[in-house]
């Protein structure tokens, strides 16, 4: 296999990992103010992702680094073009990371609710913005013949991309609520997590179907049979996930929704392939895995590193989930 193709796949894998893992911890952060009725409950909710959220976020950082190393021109065009969107994303991630660390270190209710608000904003914004970004990539943005983005921030917002943002937001929230049904002790809070999953799930389903429909009308994704099958399989997996959460089979529900997130991500990247960013001005000016790539030498070095390291990373990160596999109880919060 060509290294350019391999790196496209690797970056897809990194995004799949990122959306699957950080998807549920964004979801938990978004649900924090709604599910956590009191401080103990909120701390239980945070505790469910406490040991893992930072490791999950590294998937995104690695995806950024990998894009820089493998397709520097795509990194340059994307990051300078989506400037203000990324600024908001970063702002969200900054306050979120600080909030996890800061909130419980002071007992005043004002302090805690402020940082809880930051966790909410810092989870809500990135979830929404990643949806906007991914749908923009495939729909196409104004990129000129010099690989420069020539639009503004508002050019990134269309019906399609806003629906994309909302779909990501709601699916991640659903994903987070399913995660919580597995991670908080059996009882009142878990029941409320299920209830909220059922409610959010309906909204997510509607918007997600809207996204699929608009993807059909606004992009060329469905011309690629692999991507189309992948996206429709994602819809199917989502429906099953919803049925399972209704039927209280939480483990299966979470697995299927994870599959849905993974398949959706894969579908969008598959639909992009071999492009990385579509130019809406002229298809010739799109950034591809060839015209935006690093040299074969650099790709080779990076391939060796990635193929050795990614399996190891999966092992120890997986082990963390095993160590913290028990449901979180109110007792866990005090040693």
């Amino acid at each position: 296999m060509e290294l350019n193709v391999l790196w496209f796949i690797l970056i897809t894998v990194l995004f799949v990992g990122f959306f699957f893992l950080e998807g549920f911890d964004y979801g938990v952060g978004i649900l924090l103010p709604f599910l956590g009725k009191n401080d103990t409950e909120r701390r239980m909710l945070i505790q469910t992702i406490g040991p893992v959220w930072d490791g999950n976020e590294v998937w995104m950082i690695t995806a950024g680094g990998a894009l820089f190393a493998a397709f520097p021109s795509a990194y340059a065009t994307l990051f300078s073009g989506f400037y203000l969107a990324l600024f908001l994303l970063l702002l969200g991630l900054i306050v979120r990371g600080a909030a996890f660390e800061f909130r419980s270190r002071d007992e005043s209710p004002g302090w805690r609710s402020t940082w809880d608000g930051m966790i909410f904003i810092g989870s809500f914004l990135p979830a929404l913005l990643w949806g906007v970004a991914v749908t923009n990539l495939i729909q196409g943005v104004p990129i000129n013949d010099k690989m420069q983005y020539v639009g503004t921030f508002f050019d990134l917002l269309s019906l399609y991309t806003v629906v994309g943002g909302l779909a990501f937001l709601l699916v991640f929230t659903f994903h987070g609520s399913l995660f919580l049904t597995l991670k908080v002790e059996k009882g009142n809070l878990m029941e409320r997590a299920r209830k909220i999953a059922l409610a959010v799930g309906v909204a997510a389903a509607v918007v997600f179907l809207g996204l699929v429909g608009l993807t059909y009308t606004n992009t060329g994704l469905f011309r690629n049979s692999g991507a189309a099958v992948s996206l429709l399989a994602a819809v199917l997996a989502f429906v099953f996930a919803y049925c399972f959460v209704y039927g209280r089979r939480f483990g299966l529900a979470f697995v299927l929704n994870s599959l849905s997130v993974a398949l959706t991500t894969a579908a969008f990247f598959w639909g992009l392939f071999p492009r990385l960013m579509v130019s809406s001005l002229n298809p010739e000016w799109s950034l591809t895995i060839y015209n935006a790539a690093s040299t074969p030498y650099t790709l080779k070095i990076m391939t060796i590193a990635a193929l050795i390291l990614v399996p190891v990373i999966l092992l120890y990160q997986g082990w963390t989930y095993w160590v913290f596999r028990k449901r979180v109880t109110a007792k866990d919060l005090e040693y």
Partner: protein
Amino acid sequence: MTELLLARWQFGITTTYHFLFVPLTLGLSILLAIMETIYVRTGNQRYKKMTQFWGKLFLINFALGVVTGIVQEFHFGMNWSEYSRFMGDIFGAPLAMEALTAFFLESTFLGLWIFGWERLPKRLHAATIWIVALASNLSAFWILVANSFMQSPVGYVLRNGRAEMIDFTALVTNPYVAFQYSHTFFSALTTAGVFVTAISAYYLLKESYREYFLPSFRLGVVCMLLGAVLAGGTGHLQAQNIAKVQPMKLAAVEALWETDSSAPLALYASIDEEKRLNSSEISIPGALSFMVHNSFTGEVKGINNLQAEYTAEFGPGNYIPQVTPLFWSFHIMFLTGGWLVLLAALGVLLLLTGRLESQRWFLWAALWTLPVPYIANSTGWFVTEIGRQPWIVYGLQRVEQAVSPGVPAPSIWISLIGFTLVYGVLALSAVYLGRKIILQGPDIGHGREQQQSKATKEAALWS
């Protein structure tokens, strides 16, 4: 202000702010690992409490290091897209390596460390903080490989209108990396040493929790002495290397305008950048030549001569970085470093002679020294980065060629103001929490926990 200037300000602010937290993370993680290892080997609960107390402060600092680090990785693409395009083939690789080899380890094992006190066997738990320490320092290594390329490019060829990597090994074994990394590492060790020493001094002055903070002080001050002496030594070697690969930087930090076969070391200079001379200076004759060449008669190139050389080599232009901030940054770094060596040596001496706690003036001095390593670290980076001007990659690409052409000034203003405000609020919150933790002291443990306020229990969640 132009886009270029705004983008430079943003780079300066975000990088300096990020590096307020990094050195403590690099150094304190090692000290935590040592403390916890002592606890595991001796079973002494006091060391466990010590580890947890310093751990709380470490985590607040670590969190801010991480969140500001995300901006670091993104802003090359955001503000410097043409740099990313021109250099990405080379510069992207160490950044990706950093994420793959270090960030995953660091974040995953820190999560295990924070939440695993009750879940993991003792030895394994101690191993997690060692891994965090190793991974943090590994991440510093990769990012300095990337920065070293900017300072002293190696292993590349100019092809297809960009710099392309032809030798990854050369990138990693770049002499610049060895000097810069060792200097950074020992500076980080010094920072952690001062941090632990200063806060321990506060408790010793208050005469409370002596059983925790005398051992902490010992560990801190030894670390500080080791770090400061070696940071000085590696700094000297680094300067000698810079004389070879970035002569303009060396000339500028010393405000040496004319080439001199027996160059003086200026202690004070009244710099006139317009006329390109020092209107007055106080200097030690021949000392700069000695520092650079280990002999009083070695030629050191001057700014004006280098300007002429570069004009001949790269075409017309101004190749002189801002001499005044460079001169003073370098000299402040030098002085603060010297102060830290003295203080640490004195501290070790007082410890050995058993007179530490009777010499309250020394404890006060140690406490007030807390900001000093932060000044040294920041000025060090000012020297490194301002001294690179006008180049973003030395001799290959100028800063003005690197800036994103498609990002208008208002966008940069928005992000500059936004980040700076949020950074300010976070810094204040961190200081507030740090102060609170220090005032609370290390909590006394399980037996007394019931009588403690709910607040401490709440705080214990994260420790």
